[in-house]
């Protein structure tokens, strides 16, 4: 029994990491129909900002998290205004080619600036180690991940449901033409949403260093997981991303625990199964 609890806990924590990394992509995909494969590169940027802030400027870890968010958001706004927006009306193939090219560029820039090696960070003591509850050991950092992810869910949910900007975003996702017709500045909403989504990816990248490490291939490495979460969850749905990420994380860890021979394979079976039954994803609308 205890084993199942701990597997669920670990899976959930890993899933929450995936959620933070992918929720932005889900929203921008749903909102703008723009296939941004470079989403993981913003995560990588956030990771490097954290490493740099901790090493060069001696920031405490917690303070680097908003810095990672802001840096990724800012850079994404610049790129959105100068590059991405030119491709909003282009075909899907062009978008895919352009954004995957951007990942290569990001990888090269990271290699040039930071070298090819792993970039370790040293967490504060209170985030390390594990606590024992009812004879089971739970990683402190994994608790932290789950708490942060739940906070983000609450914030994003509140923001989308209760604020003016949230209403505008929802309106634009539901029907862009009508939203434009009643006088919403859809382009501005695009830009803001894009920045927020990329910022969350940056935050995810910063949080991921402790669990999976950081090197220039980060942008590629996580692309598959992020795309699975988005596909399973359904485009444009925060709740979907949350459910998809939790399912993926728990499915991955539980599969590896109970059936180690095929464990790494199980999430793909899960993906195929879910998409066969619900082609739009768990919470997909269109």
């Amino acid at each position, binding site marked *: 029994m205890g*084993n199942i609890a*701990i*597997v669920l806990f*670990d*899976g959930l924590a*890993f899933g929450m990491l995936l959620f933070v990394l992918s929720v932005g992509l889900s929203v921008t995909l749903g909102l703008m129909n723009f296939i941004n494969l470079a989403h993981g590169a913003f995560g990588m940027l956030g990771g490097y900002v954290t490493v740099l802030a901790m090493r060069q400027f001696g920031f405490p870890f917690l303070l680097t998290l908003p810095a990672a968010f802001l840096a990724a958001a800012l850079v994404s706004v610049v790129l959105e205004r100068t590059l991405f927006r030119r491709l909003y009306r282009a075909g899907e193939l062009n978008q895919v080619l352009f954004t995957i090219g951007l990942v290569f560029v990001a990888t090269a820039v990271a*290699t040039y600036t930071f*070298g*090819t*090696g*792993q970039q*370790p*960070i*040293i967490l504060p003591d209170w985030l*390390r*180690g*594990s606590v024992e509850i009812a004879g089971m*050991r739970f*990683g402190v950092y*994994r608790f932290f991940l789950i708490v942060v992810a739940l906070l983000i869910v609450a914030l994003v949910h509140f923001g989308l449901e209760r604020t003016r900007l949230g209403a505008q975003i929802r309106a634009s996702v539901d029907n862009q033409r009508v939203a434009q017709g009643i006088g919403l500045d859809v382009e501005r909403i695009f830009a803001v949403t894009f920045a927020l989504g990329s910022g969350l990816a940056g935050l995810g990248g910063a949080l991921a260093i*402790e*669990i*999976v*490490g*950081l*090197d*220039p*291939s980060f942008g590629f*490495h996580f692309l598959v*997981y992020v795309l699975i979460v988005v596909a399973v969850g359904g485009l444009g749905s925060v709740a979907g991303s949350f459910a998809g990420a939790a399912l993926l994380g728990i499915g*991955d*860890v*539980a*599969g*590896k*625990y109970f059936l*180690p021979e095929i*464990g*790494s394979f199980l999430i793909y079976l899960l993906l195929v199964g879910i998409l066969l039954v619900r082609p739009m994803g768990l919470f997909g609308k269109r």
Partner: protein
Amino acid sequence: MLKKITAALALGLALGWAATASAQETLKVGVILPYSGPFADAANQLQAGIDLYMSQNGDEVAGRKIEIIRKDTGGPNADAAQRAAQELVVRDQVDIIAGFALTPEALGAAEIATEAGKMMVVMNAATSIVTERSPFIVRTSVTIPQLNYAFGKWAFEEGGVKQAYTLVADYGPGHDAEASFSKGFTEAGGEILGSDRTPVANPDFSAYVQRVRDANPEAVYIFVPGGAQPAAIGKALVDRGLAPPDVKILAQGELTHPEALESMGETARGIITTFHYTLERDDPLNNEYVAAYGEANNGRAPDLFSIGGYDGMHLIYETLKKTNGDAGGEALVEAAKGMAWDSPRGPVMIDPETRDIVQTVYIREVQEVDGKLQNAIIHSIPDVKDPLHGAN
């Protein structure tokens, strides 16, 4: 008119002379490595080892200037390596091929080395079988069975471990490590409680580590490729309470390389690893090497790839000296057989029968030395050969 002809003649002669001169003097070494892709860091470190040796020893040997030509394979790709070797031999007309961070690269190029009759210096690829694929292959790195067979024996006989669980990455080197550690360990009398294999690109180890904990072994043996995984698995183990002194963690040296140690921090204390190169080994040759390497690479520490490249260049230089600049494959391989030298890693020798490296295997434990956690050598096993060669 006459002037023009004279000028043309002079030019032609000069060019012809220059061409023959350079053909005689320049010796081309083709280096095949995964310079891009997920193993770019390994290629970088290996290349840095090559560069360091050349900057210390000059680029001229036996009257010939050494020129390095790089070819990228992008990863563990046998076809790309074969193509690269072919291009190097046919188009660039190299005299020696070298590099090979990954086993598939070495296997891909082996046939070309045999056909072209060029010496092939394997500077990393650590699967036992590599040197058996061509009589022109010489290896200056290490083999996985070499490190782990002796380690398995040691774990039972002197480490006091009676039963263990193995957890290895699910690919060739991981299988080799699992097999050779288990063989050494069970032959000595130990018992393997269970073994699991993790995907090569595994981001999260919590599930596997929980399985190990369920089996409640005295020790867990781990093999993962370098990069992000060592720190990840190390932390996952400690989070589960699978840590020394309660449970011994045994592994190949990648697990406690400097970046992983930094990331694991205090949790790494007591991990026992087996390796052929130990950064902190206090030896004048090694200290000098580490200092020079750091100076040339922004303070970065050399690793197993660096020492493979460094010693690989040493072998190329020394064999050329022995043949007086004759770069024929047979002459060079003949010169390499039985060659012994003092490397920063310790004394090494090329086995005349298998053309593989014979060296000291170090068993290290993570300890605090001068306030810093590092791999302290607790036992050395001299002159270890690969136990698998000739076995099949």
